[in-house]
């Protein structure tokens, strides 16, 4: 085929075909490759941070200075699957317009703590972490105090600020 004389700077027929093949092949690879990466990573990188003010009923129904468990359920859509997850919040009414809300999820490994009125402490059943009424760590493996929810009172109704993926 290319038996003719060529100076070294000239491009041979074979090299030309190879370059064109590599170029078009590369473009085709990129055109298919980028969607494949996006396809694989897409759901993983999606932010699932939603937030909502959860109504927790009239403030007056919560006894003063005594942690009371309030539970609510949030549904989430993961791909084709809908899951409902329930959350527990201990509501402590300090006064008529001052309310604190503590998550019942232990900061150690995520078990649910329970309020023991007889000793006046939250106790985690999994690894025996103890917390004060305000959520501070007394003893046990918990690394930090119980998480707090932001609250607001509107016309005598209590609302808890829920942030998805947190608490």
């Amino acid at each position, binding site marked *: 085929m290319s038996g003719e004389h060529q100076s070294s700077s000239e491009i041979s027929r074979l090299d030309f075909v190879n370059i064109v093949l590599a170029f078009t092949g590369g473009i085709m690879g990129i055109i298919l490759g980028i969607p494949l990466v996006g*396809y694989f990573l897409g*759901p993983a990188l999606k932010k699932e941070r939603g937030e909502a003010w959860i109504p927790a009923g009239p403030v007056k129904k919560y006894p003063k200075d005594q942690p009371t468990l309030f539970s609510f359920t949030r549904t989430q859509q993961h*791909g*084709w699957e809908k899951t409902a997850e329930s959350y527990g919040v201990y509501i402590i009414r300090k006064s008529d317009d001052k309310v604190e809300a503590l998550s019942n999820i232990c900061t150690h490994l995520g078990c649910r703590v329970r309020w023991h009125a007889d000793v006046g402490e939250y106790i985690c059943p999994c690894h025996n972490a103890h917390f004060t009424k305000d959520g501070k760590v007394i003893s046990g493996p918990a690394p930090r105090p119980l998480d707090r929810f932001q609250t607001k009172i509107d016309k005598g109704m209590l609302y808890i600020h829920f942030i998805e993926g947190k608490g």
Partner: protein
Amino acid sequence: MSKHQQPHKPAWLEWLDERLGLTTIYKVTLDRKVPKVNWWYCLGSATLFVFIMQIITGMFLLVYYTPSPDHAYDSIQYIMTGVPYGWLIRGIHHWGASLMVLLVFIHMLRVFYMGAYRYPRELTWVIGVFLLLATLGMGFTGYLLPWNQRAFFATVVGTNIAGTVPYIGDFIRRVLRGGETVSALTLSRFFAIHVWILPAIMVTLVAIHIYLIIRIGISNPPTKDE
């Protein structure tokens, strides 16, 4: 081309070449002698290309597809609407399937009309026949996986047709369906056949097919007096 000056290879390529024999592989597979042929001779390579595309897109579809009656349809809806480029990946797989059946068929006609199946290429032909059957099997099993009305009743009809075989028809239908009716068991066995059993068989057969082509070489187009 005989005096084609080899450009000096970088050291790492030299190192690999010495151990893997890349140059030999390249010469045997891509630099081999080919008779003067026409575009009809591309059909085999075209089929191989589509087959590889089917494997790649199929692997990615598996990331989200769920082979169970309560999730199959929803997971495909999710691929089509919820995942970036999901419509593209599934679209390529969907159209690629039809294209592959078409290409395999025209490829077979080309080999048939040019008499390329004759000595010494009989085995290449026989393996090609099995590859045609496997391709049709892929089409049949893949059609059920979306688990919509059309897929379901196509499988009901398709397995009923298989059931018309004399004497063993009922047995074949039961084996295909995994029981008396088209059910979750049908879906899961079609899934297994579609993503592992047939692909494993096909990759093996394609490897032998290509080995034979490289070993024997492709046939000359027939001459006037043949």
